[in-house]
């Protein structure tokens, strides 16, 4: 299973200087605003502007440190959707906080979404064409805490100790956990080894009860030679569902090597409950100065995938077992001249046994191409056109989308885009075809202070009806 993008980003984030993160409470937020109006400005802020006016000859100055440094954003999102006599209005509030005491030692971060269903008009059974995941709960106000944790940086022998809700992103699979995480400092200068462990209750944002669920794991990672990384992971997961407790043991091995700064090779292997689960090999080559980027990938799943716990196989409950298969693919990206970039990608999945072909186990080929340009014919003008073709047995899809945008001074941006998708599928020899078109127009830009806005209208037409969506977003950064 592919590692998610956030996994790698998170790994990087811990290596970077810890960006003074915030205590997760509104009270702390209020206190910070009172204590440090200057510090409440992030990059591009008042003190930064002062620094900018001073020019490059200015000596390095250390700004006065407030007691508490908090950065973050409050984002309010209003969305109204309508078609015929059916409509739906939602209001979402996002809170993002990062920071901590200026004295260091402890930082934190929080990301919370509160969703309010302002009104929903459906049929006599309460159904509306705009039903989504939020409507599977009874209440009209729901919330999701994506993460909220405190980091302790000065515990002897540890690089990081974290408590709270977090995404564990270096593990072979991304784990979303309420619990503890600790990572040692690098030891053994020649091998540069670090150890870590974690444990807690897996977060299931859409499951009503976490009773009986648990996860515990440990890892060892080393950077024994230049550009090389080794990592071994072991995790034990328990999940209680329908009165039964399921268990899985996951072992992960990873070797990554970067040759010079341009070429990277990664080989990852996982085992579940003692059996081989998958092998993933990726080679990437990135040449920023030439605007060139390429990747090749080979993935092998030698055994049928049906993990007992959803962490290791979130889709089997709905999509059944995933048959043994291989995946080969590659992508290449090249900047052409000063303004244009072209990207091409191709993937092919090959079932080990073609007799496994079924509604949930397909062989497929997928190709995509993207053509993008920027600052042509005028400065700030750009756009992209991207096409995607996916062929499998019985279920095919095509899509074509494009956007034209203009960026003005002061980060004002206007864009006009369109998306077309065609789905061809076969519900038991009933060949069907659906086409969907959407057009959107959006305008986003700055308001006074550290505020931003976004207004967007989207029109969608599918085989059944026409739909309209208006989105209004206000963001305050601090």
């Amino acid at each position, binding site marked *: 299973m592919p590692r998610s993008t956030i996994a790698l980003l998170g790994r*990087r984030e811990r290596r*970077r200087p810890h960006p003074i993160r915030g205590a997760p409470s509104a009270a702390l937020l209020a206190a910070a605003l009172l204590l440090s109006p200057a510090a409440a400005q992030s990059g591009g802020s008042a003190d930064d502007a002062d620094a900018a006016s001073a020019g490059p000859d200015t000596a390095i100055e250390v700004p006065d440190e407030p007691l508490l440094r908090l950065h973050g954003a409050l984002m309010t999102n209003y969305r109204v959707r309508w078609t015929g006599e059916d409509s739906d209005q939602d209001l979402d509030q996002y809170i993002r906080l990062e920071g901590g005491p200026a004295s260091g030692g402890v930082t934190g971060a929080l990301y919370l979404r509160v969703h309010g269903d302002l009104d929903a008009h459906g049929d006599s059974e309460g*159904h509306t064409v705009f039903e989504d995941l939020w409507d599977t709960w009874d209440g009209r106000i729901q919330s999701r805490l994506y993460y909220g944790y405190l980091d302790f940086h000065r515990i002897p022998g540890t690089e990081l100790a974290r408590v709270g809700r977090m995404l564990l992103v270096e593990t072979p699979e991304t784990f979303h956990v309420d619990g503890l995480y600790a990572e040692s400092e690098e030891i053994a200068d020649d091998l540069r080894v670090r150890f870590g462990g974690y444990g807690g209750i897996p977060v299931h*944002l859409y499951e009503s009860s976490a009773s009986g669920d648990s996860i515990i794991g440990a890892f060892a990672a080393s950077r024994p030679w230049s550009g090389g990384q080794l990592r071994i992971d072991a995790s034990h997961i328990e999940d209680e569902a329908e009165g039964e407790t399921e268990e899985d043991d996951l072992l992960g091995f990873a070797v990554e090597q970067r040759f010079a700064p341009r070429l990277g090779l990664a080989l990852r292997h996982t085992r579940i409950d003692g059996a081989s689960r998958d092998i993933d090999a990726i080679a990437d080559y990135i040449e920023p100065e030439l605007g060139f980027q390429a990747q*090749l990938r080979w993935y092998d799943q030698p055994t049928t995938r049906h993990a007992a716990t959803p962490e290791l196989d979130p889709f089997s409950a709905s999509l059944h077992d995933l048959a043994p298969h291989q995946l080969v693919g590659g992508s290449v990206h090249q900047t052409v001249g000063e303004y244009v970039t072209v990207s091409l990608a191709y993937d092919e999945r090959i079932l080990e046994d073609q007799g496994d072909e079924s509604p949930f186990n397909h062989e497929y080929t997928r190709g995509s191409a993207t053509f993008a340009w920027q600052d042509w014919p005028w400065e700030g003008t*750009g756009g992209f056109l991207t096409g995607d073709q996916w062929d499998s047995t019985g279920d095919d899809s095509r899509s074509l989308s494009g956007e034209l945008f203009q960026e003005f001074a002061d980060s004002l941006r206007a864009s006009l885009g369109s998306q077309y998708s065609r789905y061809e599928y076969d519900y038991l020899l009933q060949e069907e075809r659906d086409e*969907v078109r959407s057009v959107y127009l959006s305008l986003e830009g700055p308001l006074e202070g550290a505020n931003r806005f976004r207004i967007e209208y989207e029109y969608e037409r599918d085989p*059944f009806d026409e739909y309209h969506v208006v989105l209004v977003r206000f963001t305050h950064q601090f």
Partner: protein
Amino acid sequence: MTEARRTSLLLCASLAAVAAGCAMLGVRGGPPQGFSHSQHFDGVRLPCTHCHPGAESGERAGLPTLETCHQCHDPAEEEGLPEEYRMEAILGSAPAEWAAHGSRFADEVKFSHAAHSGAVPCETCHGDILASSGSDEPRRIGMTECVACHEESGPAPRCSTCHSEIDESWRPPNHDAGWMTRHGQVARAGNPQEFTEQCALCHQESACVGCHLDEPPRNHTRFWRERGHSIEARVDRDRCSTCHLPDSCDRCHSEQAPISHRGPWGQPRNTHCLDCHLDGTRECQLCHQEGAPSHALATPLPPGHLPSFNCRQCHGLSAPLPHVDKGDDCITCHL
């Protein structure tokens, strides 16, 4: 596996091997190195400031001029040397940013040699340059190293510590209009030496979570939610896992019937059911929720069924259940 597929696998492996070989052998090209730092430091014992006058007391270290070289070298020494090995050519081959800014840093970077030279050993930033037989540094310092050192020793690495021009809307050169389609590959590559690839220097964790866990992509239209997603998930579920963690499928598929399952969907024996409900082990529960002791509490009731009906009257062991799973699993529980 077919022959064509074997060939494509072999082709991919070959390309990877060639790329690896090129990188390992350093097929990069470049001009000849006519200047040796080690020869001037170890051999002649010149201090750094002889050629770089601002290295200890100035904002910028500065570059030597032709006159600096001529203080020791007689121009006549160069007679007969190839053009690229002459002093003027070597000085002229300095990177453009050196010529423009007196340093590799842009003008807006508030770096001061004077502020660092007393506290930071030269090799911290310049590596083993004094032992280098070339003119270029064996280690090229960038934002990553600056930030790491400031984190350790201070001053705190705020943007304004080093940058005098801070523009929140500034983007690295590779963040062009097609960036969104390929940013994942760069993030996965994990190259810490290229600051343009270091997402975390500018983006907080919420930037990932906001898009990957919360904001659906453009193609996730209303139609997508109703029908499109099932087609793509059936073809390649692993793409879903880029954003979707456990439970998102179960929540909709077990707590409520799909939106399409309305009106006459199930009449009389709709073969569409078989397309999804093949398993026969727990599949009844997709419609007949867990714990329902009889069809009286099952939702939705099959068409034409009333709560008062006696199930066994029609669905006895001798009368096969007219249902997609032949009734085998129901009989296990509902005898």
